[in-house]
């Protein structure tokens, strides 16, 4: 009798699931933009929304295991454990620095293609061809010390051809060689910039001038083995994803996702409130806060890798003076910023690397908000009450990205106000994102700035240090404050090839101690990456690229 009730209930539930309108399995996801390209070596790869397209349509070799849901229901990666995705099992031979990857069988892509070793070889060959506008695949391979992925590729045509560093052993086995020991090998293979293409599907779109199908991936689609397939793509408007029913981890629960561009964040709030949309991203902290009490809406976030710091350029006086740097660091009203600009969804940042990353260590030197200390330091630096700083009006313009005015406005105004209170005559200088990027990355001439957009995609303190703090001529690609310390460079040279995790972490901790002592950045806060969504939606998971994986989601 009991059995039959359960059975009937199960039958009824099944019937309901079938009879329910297709809408119940649909998701309308509003973002500031839709993918502008699906080619990670293409011009749109650095745009976060483009990455969202890639990670849902493509499949990686590796990913991280997950932690259980936190108090807000968010699931986060466990950075200490790697999981094979397209790789079933793997082996590393220290003597020859060779990784042997046994690939998963029975993986089927959207057009029915079957995943084999050829697809992996194709992916690395394409990356090494550096034929796209921005060769990210090559860059990540280089970061992971995959042999042959050196800067030679830019000068020498022959160096762009894949050699024996990535070889197919059989249909389901691949070997990859490293040029030196490097702990970043597995981390880079989890990043969207080395997701695996479907060779056949891509080659079907190739032309004589464009053998690697960049035009196809930039404008029309991508062939891979991801959980979703592309149904429709109208740039600047919407991208429609449908579930890949053959997905090897099981068909995704949400069958159809419409990613719609709604540029103004306040408009995304409105549509979510009306119940038309089920998931929105990239609101301002104020807007997330206002949605916390809204009916039918949930807000959740994690302290992932988003942070805000003050950038002071070592090449520009008065920031070449360590005392001035310390004075600025002490004059930043962190608690006020957390309360007024982040509505409590942030914590003070005590280091130079995201605190959740492996290898992070909190340094002993800290610069808490202390206006009196700031004044004393200024006086010691030779600028009592700020006298003499007027000469540096140009350098004291606090630059920030104009498009982020709504979020950063309260932050820069608070900082500007408290800097003036200690005698530093700071002014504000909002400039367009593109110009900010040009000055930060290419010209490296921003004297004084607020930055909230550095989210190292390689989840490792060493990766962040290599990227931001190693001297430019030693490979510090994004050393935006023109910092040069022989100690840091030498310590990193050791840590880079150190195989023992503990020894490596000790070296990284030493570096982080030096960074804080020199106030290379003035870290302010780590803030939550948040989403607002229908309270029926479950399973939301944070990934280091901050893109949602629709396959994580389901309706309760």
């Amino acid at each position: 009798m009991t059995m039959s009730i359960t059975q009937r209930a199960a039958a009824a539930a099944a019937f309901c699931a079938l009879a329910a309108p297709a809408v119940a399995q649909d998701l309308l996801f509003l973002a500031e933009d839709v993918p502008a390209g699906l080619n990670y070596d293409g011009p749109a790869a650095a745009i976060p929304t483009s990455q969202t397209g890639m990670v849902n349509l493509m499949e990686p070799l590796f990913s991280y295991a997950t932690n259980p849901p936190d108090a807000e229901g968010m699931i986060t990666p466990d950075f200490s454990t790697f999981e094979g995705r397209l790789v079933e099992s793997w082996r590393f031979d220290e003597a020859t620095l060779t990784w042997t990857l046994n690939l998963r069988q029975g993986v089927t892509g959207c057009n029915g293609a079957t995943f084999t070793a050829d697809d992996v070889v194709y992916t690395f060959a394409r990356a090494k061809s550096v034929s796209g506008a921005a060769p990210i695949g090559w860059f990540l391979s280089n970061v992971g010390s995959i042999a042959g992925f050196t800067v030679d590729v830019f000068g020498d045509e022959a160096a762009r051809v894949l050699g024996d560093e990535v070889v197919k052993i059989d249909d389901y086995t691949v070997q990859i060689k490293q040029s030196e020991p490097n702990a970043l090998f597995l981390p880079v293979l989890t990043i969207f910039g080395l997701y695996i293409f479907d060779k056949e599907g891509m080659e079907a779109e190739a032309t004589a001038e464009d053998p690697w199908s960049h035009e196809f991936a930039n404008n029309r689609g991508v062939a891979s083995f991801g959980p979703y397939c592309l149904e429709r793509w109208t740039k600047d408007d919407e991208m429609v994803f449908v579930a890949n029913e053959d997905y090897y981890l099981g068909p995704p629960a949400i069958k159809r996702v419409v990613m719609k561009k709604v540029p103004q964040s306040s408009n995304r709030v409105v549509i979510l409130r009306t119940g038309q949309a089920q998931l929105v991203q990239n609101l301002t902290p104020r807007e997330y806060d206002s949605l916390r009490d809204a009916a039918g809406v949930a807000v959740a976030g994690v302290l992932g890798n988003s942070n805000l710091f003050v950038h002071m350029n070592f090449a520009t006086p008065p920031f070449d003076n360590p005392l001035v740097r310390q004075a600025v660091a002490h004059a930043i009203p962190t608690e006020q910023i957390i309360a007024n600009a982040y509505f409590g969804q942030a914590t003070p940042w005590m280091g130079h690397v995201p605190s959740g990353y492996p290898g992070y260590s909190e340094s002993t030197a800290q610069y808490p908000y202390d206006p009196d200390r700031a004044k004393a330091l200024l006086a010691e630096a030779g600028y009592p009450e700020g006298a003499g700083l007027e000469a540096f009006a140009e350098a004291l313009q606090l630059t920030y990205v104009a498009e982020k005015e709504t979020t950063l406005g309260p932050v820069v105004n608070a900082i500007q106000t408290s800097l003036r209170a200690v005698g530093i005559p700071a002014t504000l200088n909002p400039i367009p994102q593109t110009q900010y990027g040009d000055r930060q990355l290419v010209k490296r001439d921003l004297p004084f700035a607020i930055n909230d957009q550095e989210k190292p995609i390689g989840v490792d303190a060493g990766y962040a240090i290599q990227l931001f703090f190693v001297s430019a001529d030693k490979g510090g690609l994004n050393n935006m404050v023109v910092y040069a310390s022989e100690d840091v460079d030498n310590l990193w040279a050791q840590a880079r090839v150190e195989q023992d995790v503990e020894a490596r972490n000790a070296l990284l901790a030493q570096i982080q101690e030096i960074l804080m002592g020199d106030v290379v950045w003035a870290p302010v806060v780590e803030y939550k990456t948040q989403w607002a969504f229908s309270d029926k939606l479950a399973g939301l998971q944070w990934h280091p690229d901050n893109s949602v994986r629709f396959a994580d989601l389901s309706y309760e």
Partner: protein
Amino acid sequence: MLLRYVIRRILIGVLQLLGLTVAVFFLIRLLPADPVSRFVGLNASEEAYAQAEANLGLDRPLTTQLLHYLGLAPSEGDGLLQGSLGTSWVTGSTVAAEIGDKLPLTLELITLSFIVAFLISVPIGMLGALRPGGRADKGVFLYSLFAGSQPEFWWGLLFVFVFFFQLGWAPPPLGVLSPLTSAPPDVTGLILVDSLIAGRPAVFLEALHHLMLPVLTLVFILSGPIIKMVRQNMARALQSDFVLYARCAGLPRGTVARYALRAAMAPSMTLIGILYGFMLGGAVLIESVFSLGGLGQFAIRSILAFDYPAIQGVVLVITAISLGVYLFLDIFHALIDPRVAY
């Protein structure tokens, strides 16, 4: 005679556009930043930078780039002469396609607003002019002064606050169609027309509903100067000799008013033409309040992204349309007023 005048004006127009194109080409290359950094965000090595620069064609000499853009260097690819505006660096689509995508919405918005504003303003302006100094006239006059001097983006926000937030009559300011509605197939690019062609009246009504507030805002602002002009010209016409004569001849009031209206329209047309040209670029404020992805928004985005081909394209198109409107007005005047001659 007139034909020669028209041909001459068109030739001048083409020269003007050519000069403008060259000027804008060099002007934007003076910009202190280039878009290359956008493409190398994750890997800003010198090699990657050079690679991206070469991909955009920015490593070639300026003159080569200019000749390519103008279409005078066939070996480099299509240019203006071949009808190509180049390819946007941000989206990878052709600039012509991008503009073709955005322009219809802007045209739809401002044309609709002008039609409604005109239909409302003419009777109101006439009402004022028929009894100069009367209570109605004073009201009309005050309104036209006030409406003509208002910040439209602020009124747009205010209307959103009142009609959407407080009263719930208007849809949220989310573009011309709700995000859930699929757009009708693209025939003319104009949603209002395409929805009817596709036989989807519901979409037509939805688009109208979504355009309600932006059009209301623009009509409010535009009606100011138009009413003022109609009222003034009408009053002038009513006092002119031919109207006095018509009155003395005992023609019915309505007929007299019609004559006067016709005489008053010509100068009003000029004003409307100038306003229309200004609005092509000026509609960006309303577009941004109501999230309408029109040409103005596209222009702003292109400049913020330092997307050179897109900036050149959008400047060229807006200026060409404005010059076209002015040319049309001049011809119109030359037709009705033989004294205009060059």
